[in-house]
């Protein structure tokens, strides 16, 4: 899956799941603040990641993910690792 495709797909499901304007999702925007995530919202985030990209998320995966760029790169790494396996 190409990186741009990952970005587009991610932005679409995040905007839908968390009911925000897709224009607010920019690479440098803070993930937690933009999506207004509380601890329980991370569960919903994991559900949409796993259902859209078919890989298992581990709790420690979120360490170091601050903005959307970090998040895209994380998804890209996991998707490509899955495709290579």
């Amino acid at each position: 899956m190409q990186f741009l495709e990952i970005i587009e797909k991610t932005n679409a499901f995040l905007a839908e799941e968390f009911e925000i304007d897709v224009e607010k999702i920019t690479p440098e925007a803070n993930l937690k603040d933009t999506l207004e995530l509380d601890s329980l919202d991370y569960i919903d985030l994991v559900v949409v990641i796993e259902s859209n990209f078919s890989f298992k998320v581990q709790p420690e995966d979120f360490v170091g993910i601050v903005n959307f760029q970090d998040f895209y790169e994380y998804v890209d790494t996991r998707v490509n690792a899955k495709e290579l396996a």
Partner: protein
Amino acid sequence: MFIPPANTPDLIPQKFPFVMIDDLTWTDEKSSRTTFCVKADNVLVDDGEFSAGGLVENIAQTAAARAGYLAQNQEKPDSIGYIGAIKNLEVFSLPKINDTLETEIIIDNQIFDVTLISGKVKCGEETLAQCQMKVFIIKQ
């Protein structure tokens, strides 16, 4: 194989007068079901109707009964379930005194220590309420 428990309320941490399930009637890998008869002296009955909060508690206690049943059958320490969040709650109708409720929960997903369930309460063929819950199961 499902063996109906002798006393369902023993499976959950809630005690009288806050027990909103009567019997655990089914449990398998993905679902559980309970029944409950609305009594006039129930603390969540108001003006002859079982409240929306009572319906939510009924769904939550169905999930708790499932956790207690599975823990008991696996001879593991008791677990307690805490509702983390309720989502997409729809209450279509409030049951009346002497109505018998049949509640089913389905396990949608397990993410980390959180169980995502869908619950539905019916009286006969009529769906009274449904919702999704995030439940934390904590081992005591």
